[in-house]
């Protein structure tokens, strides 16, 4: 009985703490999105990292949209329509990006086969 109670308390704590983040001010979401947006006038910074005018501007626009209820994807689509796919750091799952996402796993697969051969093929003599 005590054990069950203890587990319940743990679960309760777990959920309560995870839900204690206020989603009202959207600042966490802003940060998450900002880390994925390139600052176009900086060299290699995200708009989260950058303090340039452009970055501050875009962050403001994103926050405005978040407060109006736009979803993350809608915001990315909006920015891409204005500035091109280049502005988003995470490459989309489009057909032309297929190779990009698949090649590392493909290499891993090949490597796995090679290792499998090394382990499970018996010693052979080659004349």
């Amino acid at each position: 009985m005590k054990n069950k109670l203890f587990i319940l308390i743990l679960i309760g704590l777990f959920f309560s703490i995870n839900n204690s983040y206020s989603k009202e001010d959207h600042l966490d979401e802003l940060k998450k999105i900002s880390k994925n947006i390139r600052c176009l006038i900086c060299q290699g910074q995200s708009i989260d990292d950058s303090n340039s005018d452009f970055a501050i501007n875009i962050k403001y626009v994103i926050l405005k949209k978040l407060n109006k209820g736009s979803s993350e994807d809608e915001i990315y689509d909006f920015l891409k329509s204005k500035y091109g796919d280049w502005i988003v750091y995470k490459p989309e799952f489009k057909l032309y990006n297929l190779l990009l996402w698949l090649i590392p796993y493909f290499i891993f697969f090949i490597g796995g086969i090679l290792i499998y051969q090394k382990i499970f093929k018996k010693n052979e003599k080659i004349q």
Partner: protein
Amino acid sequence: MLPGQIGFISLVFSLFISLILFFFIFQDYKSESQAPSLKVYSLSFLQLLTIIISFFCLVLSFVISDFSLAAVYQNSHTTKPLLYKISGTWGNHEGSLLLWLLVLSIFSFCFLVQSKYTPKKYRLLTVLFQNIITIGFLLFVIKTSNPFLNLFPVPNEGLGLNPILQDPALAIHPPILYLGYVGSSIIFSSALSAMIHKFVNPSWADSIKIWILTPWIFLTLGIMLGSIWAYYELGWGGFWFWDPVENVSLMPWFSLTALVHSIIILKKRDTFHTWVLILAIITFTFSMNGTFLVRSGILNSVHTFANDPERGFYILTFLFLLILLSLIIFFIYQPKDNFVKSFFLFSRETAISVNNWFMMFFLSAVLIGTIYPLILEITKDIKISVGAPFFNIIIIPFLVPFLFFMIFGPKLKWIKTNENLMSKKLIFNFFLSLVFSSIIYFFWGKATLLNSIIFLLGLFLLLTLLFEFLETITKKNKVNIPRIISHFGFGLLIVSISLNTIFSVEMDINLKIGESYKFKKYELKFNSISGKVEKNFNSLLGSFSLTDPKGDISYLKPEIRIYNQPSITTSEANIKTNFFYDRFITMNNIQNSDFFNIRFQQKPMMIWIWVSALLISLGGILSVFRQKD
């Protein structure tokens, strides 16, 4: 002026000597002697000496601010502190190539001297290949990137170096990094030579080990220094951005780490000949690739190096020819195993193979992420970005099995492991790690499951290694200390980065003087701003007090610097470090307003991240000294 002229003449001299060296190597090759001739030794030394003289002349020109040299004029200033005048020598494209040549010739000569116990023809051919690379770079420098180009009329003052680049970490970052990149040339040349002379065997593996470890150590340190510079200087609070230039240094590190491990297999089991050779060629290819990509201007990055397509063109052609050469040699001389050895599942060889397997995976992820935008742009005229989200999604999940193998792999024995690996100590370690990571996961909402699992395994790795280390002392078990230290460093790195990711606190607000901001029981108050005029910049120093939940107050002073030569405004972060966390604050003024944009971050475990990189290289250093015994 004189040093510049001597420098240039010395460089041209070096080219002639290198060409003559060719001839004498061929001659010596045919002779019956057991050791390279005195002529080869002395010409090699002369080649090194002339390059040293040339390099020294360039450094001297920077130190005395000889603005008759274009490179000095463009990159230096009379008011720069001495350290940065010296480091300015390699802070530009031309000078850095001369540094490259210096390291190349040092390594070449050291190899010649050190390789005493290996066959003469193999040594000569290795030096020959090195010589080809040296000549290629000499031609490149003299023809397209001459650091000794003159200016007339001679200006009175230089254009000054970017203040962001005046930093101690950045000053030694190129030399250390080049020792890593260029060191891999020896592995390349040696591999080709060994292939041709049918010398790819445990004896060769033993002789080449030190030439694999040394570049690996320096590359690890070089990457660490770059990260340290980015963290302290750029003011973004991050230490790794998956910037193309960072990626380009990481790629040879992956293949070099794979080499460090697989050379052991070649030595102990006399197998993996082809794979080691492939790794040797790949490592060098990526090192050279790095040089090319950084200088050619085809990558978008924070590093601003000379963006000159002509230079990129030259390096690309040279690289292409070298790889082609290695492919042809590989095709003709590839060693044939008459007996294909297979491994047992529970053996150390298998564990090391798994390491290589994952290294190649990480390498391919970074490679494809870095060059895919290029490929897409050329073939389809579509421009995309591949940034941190891609690399994190692909790489981080694979750390879980990787860490798992790191924990159990080294416990396996060579050839076959018969005993049961599970021990009470292991289970105890596991549960200890489980407890800690569960606490973090359940009581801190920002910890994702993946982060917590990685933290768990990292901690498990650390504890396991600690126990292994203690066993050496108590039970006098023979254990590989360098491995323990390096792997411990890696485990510490994983644990530090996990904790850093999970527990970082960040705050980005706009404040006016006098205002304060409360967050999570902390309070940040913007007290005042004071102005100061320094030698080459005007400074705005902000004074902030941070009150933590306990009521302790710490003072932070971020700075805005307005330089006049060149006219750049930088934001200098104020970083307060202790064992547990770094507190990091930057201040930027907002266009057209009284507000300042303040970013405060509390980043745990930062110092341990640097310590872990040092530990990783320390293991390598200890291993080098063990070789010498």
